[in-house]
């Protein structure tokens, strides 16, 4: 009674302070559709529908371990994308000297897609976004002088997961570390590849079988190794909101459990080795609540499969600060963003963390930016005292209410997936992809119409451009080196052995043999990643993605502040002059499958009144030119994220010229270091757009360009 009275008292006081505005106006509806009140009280805590419990005990809402950071802080694990094994090896050794406790390997795009460096489709992809691994020889260089029995290694690999993991295991054994002593994680999360990242090789069915092969093998032979890292990260990067990220990731996890059980494994054999991977963005409390909700929900999900061991119920996770929250404009601000996100990850109870470097919206990190990123974690861990208390936000009226709302909203999405028969089915229908793209288009519309603030981008813009030193990679040089190493390998190895292993892999693929087991031996016998992949491909086929797009979402969300009228006016002028609407071909060339940007551009521009053609993923420049010519596009929009532009754009320009089609204009957008702008303009590129570009302003510029 007293409590209610005092709450009423607050309401009155607050209403007075607000003058004529009502309290309701101060409710905030988050992008997830959760209504956040301006004040939470004791009463809200009584309404929550999840169990808070204690750390280290089911349902693990407060953390998977009883002592959490009070005993040992999270693992600082920095993902590195250097292009060669030697350079990465140097970076690892440097990191180990400076407080890094685990290694994280980023592979180049050619490796992800199972192509050796000498394959004609990967001209621009070798050494881009990570290290090129063609064989066990590259793995040996990568881990030279790093004791694998002491160092945990995390590998971001999904497509070519079998040959890469096999080479790693084989390399460890050649180094003298038996497989049962290897620790670390392989991402091995193929479902989200079909949903957002597109770095798959085989169709969904054989891909799921491969996941099960790995879970089976590691659970029996590699007890210290995490067989899978079920990732929401790339969903949030692709534009998913936090509820979507959580729900679809847990639904993926459920699907993996089912396929491992179908393989005849016991839930307790593998569930404790399943791990998760979240993206941590700028919505501070939401991210913390998401991580807590995730642990609670996962324990409930696993419980359905009747485990005997409580450890099967505990969700362990890696986190990375959000790459998509980084912007090109006023780039030093990214240090601050990353710090806030890292705080959220820590408050949410992560087991390991990668902090992004501030220049990652422009290029790969430099030594300097990598050091700041690393230090961000060390400062939180050692200067703030945060580690001294477990789950410090538990019991907060707001955080617990938010946790509860997220549980509720995510459950709805999971139910939707269950209703269509699980995640594989849902992916075939395209449900999660469509939802995520909608959410991504909405966000862009909110940013474009200044409803969501990004400092330095749509508010408080800097008046001067700062110079930032960035790392640039000579991709051609890397490719040459890889190819010569491949030639050397093929000259010295026993080719009869290689052939017999290729046959064995094919046989295993068409029967029920464990592919990982055979490929470990194949790696030792110097079969390359490309050869092992091709052997499997001859049985499974290579998967092609049919691109689906959404329309109307951007236009429905964006607020018309006059720019839309300008665009309409410019468009009708264009139509009267040229006899048709501006036609733009949006292409992604090379092996980079991140198509969030390309799809966003496609849907937003068509909503604004352009005719937009989309190219298939993984196009070569010649193919893109052919499509632009046939469709008679006015302009080609090249979406690039993985530094492929330096090789691919020149080839595209050349291909247009060879076909007498230089009248087609070319623009570029995405992660392009400002230092490369002059290079692109010299080639004849008409305009370069960086991350954080306002789409409506870009549309006006493009119409004027034509």
């Amino acid at each position: 009674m007293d409590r209610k009275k005092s709450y009423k008292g607050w309401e009155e006081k607050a209403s007075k302070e607000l003058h004529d505005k009502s309290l309701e106006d101060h409710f905030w509806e988050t992008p997830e559709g959760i209504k956040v009140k301006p004040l939470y009280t004791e009463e809200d805590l009584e309404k929550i529908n999840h169990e808070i419990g204690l750390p280290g005990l089911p349902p693990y809402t407060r953390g998977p371990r009883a002592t959490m950071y009070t005993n040992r802080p999270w693992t600082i694990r920095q993902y590195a994308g250097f292009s060669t094994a030697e350079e990465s090896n140097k970076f690892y050794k440097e990191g180990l000297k400076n407080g890094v406790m685990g290694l994280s390997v980023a592979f180049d795009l050619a490796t992800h897609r199972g192509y050796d460096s000498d394959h004609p489709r990967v001209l621009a992809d070798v050494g881009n976004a990570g290290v090129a691994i063609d064989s066990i020889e590259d793995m040996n260089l990568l881990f030279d002088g790093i004791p694998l029995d002491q160092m945990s290694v995390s590998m971001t690999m999904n497509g070519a997961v079998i040959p890469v993991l096999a080479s790693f295991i084989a390399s460890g054994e050649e180094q003298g570390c038996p497989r049962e002593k290897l620790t670390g994680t392989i991402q091995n999360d193929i479902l989200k590849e079909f949903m957002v990242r597109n770095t798959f090789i085989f169709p969904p069915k054989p891909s799921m079988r491969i996941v099960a092969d790995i879970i089976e093998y590691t659970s029996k032979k590699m007890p210290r190794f995490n067989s899978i890292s079920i990732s929401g990260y790339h969903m949030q990067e692709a534009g998913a909101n936090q509820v979507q990220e959580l729900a679809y990731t847990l639904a993926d996890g459920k699907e993996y459990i089912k396929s491992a059980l179908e393989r005849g494994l016991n839930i307790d054999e593998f569930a404790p080795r399943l791990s998760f991977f979240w993206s941590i963005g700028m919505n501070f409390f939401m991210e913390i609540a998401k991580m807590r909700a995730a642990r609670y929900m996962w324990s409930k999900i696993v419980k359905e499969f009747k485990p005997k061991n409580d450890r099967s119920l505990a969700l362990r996770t890696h986190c990375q600060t959000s790459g998509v929250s980084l912007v090109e404009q006023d780039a030093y601000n990214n240090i601050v963003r990353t710090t806030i996100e890292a705080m959220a990850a820590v408050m949410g109870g992560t087991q390991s963390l990668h902090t992004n470097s501030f220049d990652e919206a422009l290029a790969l990190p430099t030594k300097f930016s990598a050091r700041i990123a690393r230090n961000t974690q060390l400062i939180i861990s050692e200067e703030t005292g945060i580690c001294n208390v477990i789950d410090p936000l538990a019991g907060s009226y707001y955080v617990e209410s938010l946790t509860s709302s997220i549980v509720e909203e995510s459950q709805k999405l999971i139910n939707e997936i269950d209703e269509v028969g699980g995640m594989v089915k849902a992916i075939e229908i395209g449900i999660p992809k469509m939802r995520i793209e909608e959410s991504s288009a909405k966000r862009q519309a909110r940013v474009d119409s200044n409803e969501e603030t990004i400092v330095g981008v749509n508010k408080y813009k800097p008046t001067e451009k700062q110079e930032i030193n960035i790392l640039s990679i000579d991709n051609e040089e890397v490719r040459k080196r890889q190819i010569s190493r491949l030639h050397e390998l093929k000259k010295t190895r026993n080719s009869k052995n290689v052939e017999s292993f290729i046959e064995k892999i094919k046989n295993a693929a068409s029967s029920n043999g464990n592919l990982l087991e055979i490929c470990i031996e194949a790696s030792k016998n110097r079969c390359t990643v490309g050869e092992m992949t091709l052997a499997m491909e001859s049985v499974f086929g290579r998967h092609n993605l049919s691109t689906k797009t959404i329309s109307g979402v951007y236009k429905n969300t964006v607020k018309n502040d006059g720019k839309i009228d300008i665009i309409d006016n410019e468009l009708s002028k264009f139509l009267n002059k040229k006899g048709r609407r501006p036609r733009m071909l949006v292409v992604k060339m090379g092996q980079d499958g991140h198509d969030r940007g390309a799809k966003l551009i496609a849907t937003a521009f068509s909503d604004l009144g352009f005719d937009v053609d989309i190219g298939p993923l993984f196009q070569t420049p010649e193919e893109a030119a052919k499509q632009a010519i046939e469709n008679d596009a006015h302009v080609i929009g090249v979406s690039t994220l993985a530094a492929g532009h330096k090789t691919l754009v020149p080839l595209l320009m050349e291909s247009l010229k060879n076909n007498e089609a230089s009248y087609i204009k070319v623009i570029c957008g995405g992660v392009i270091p400002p230092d490369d702008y002059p290079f692109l303009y010299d080639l004849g590129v008409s305009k370069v757009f960086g991350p954080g570009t306002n789409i409506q302003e870009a549309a006006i510029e493009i119409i004027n360009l034509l």
Partner: protein
Amino acid sequence: MKLKSYLKLFKISNIDFSKKIGISNVSLSRYITGERLPEKSILNKIFKLTEGLVDANDFFLSNSPSHDLSEIHKEEIKKMIFNIREGKLKDLAKAITLVESSLKLHNAQADLLLSKLKHNKKSLRIGITGVPGVGKSTFIETFGMSLIDLGYKVAVLAIDPSSKRTGGSILGDKTRMMKLSVNKNAFIRPSPSQGNLGGVAKRTSESIRCLEEAGFNIIFVETMGVGQAETTVYDMVDIFLVLLLPSGGDELQGIKKGIIEMADVIIINKADGNLKNTAEITMSEYKNAQNMISNIRVDISPEVFLCSSTESTGIKKIWNFIKKFEKVRRDSGSFYKTRVQQQTKAIWRNISLQSQDHIEYKLKSKDSIKKIIKDVEKNNFDVNNASRIIFDSIFKSNS
């Protein structure tokens, strides 16, 4: 039309014509060159003799400039035709753009271009329709690639719906035709529908002729099976394929019954994996129903096939039937006869299209017409009289 053009079109000599009107050959020449204007009685005679094709306006008003192309523009077209025959895709693509353009100049250029093209009797024009998600593009990808292996040159015209609200569109067909789109013996052109079905029909049938000139001998025309575009597409192809999903009847398919009745080939697509059984049931349902559907083609009955574009099954059977269909109809002469009838239909379709455009963009914007309509709205004028006056005015305007 100008008297000179009339005489040329109907192959009447100046002397014969002057005799018929009762004037000297010299006078007629002066009328034709515009040196002199004919008197009222002569105008009347010319009007009657030409059934109104040549009227007073043709002597008093100069023609709108859009019908006359400058030498530069004509030269462009000549070069374009040459390059199209040489197989240059760039020029073929540009020609289709001219055909699709809403500019008067482009239309005149397109008319000139089309008038120079040969009538290709060997090509096969295949219409394909089906609801979104039925797998049209994937079917064309598999089918098209198998035809290229047989030595054909394959073109695809895909009509994508434009958004009515914004007018923009997303054209993603090629993402589902990855192999075909990069093959040098294939040409794929997705086109926005621009919300105008009649316009789609005109543009598409003209684009077909450009493709044939470039040597493409199999032309696919792909439309969504949800609107009315199909009936118009039906009138520009030699054979009409309808793709269905392996489930239930027409209502469940979301496809209009009228469209199924037009089908020469019904294909139950996606007959793979655990849908195989359902597909077979669907096939037998349609086979039975097919007997009841009145047959449009007299010489060959439609057939139903199972197909899996992903497993590449059924394609060969379908192609064999299409070959048979083509042979039967070529042998009986109905193949070419249908094309001739389609041309006649195209004339009337173009005319009604132009009339509609004329009403929309010319008539409705005239102040006098606006006033008449205002009067009708105020009940100062009755509907029938108003309609007649407006209708008559169409024939008096020559621009």
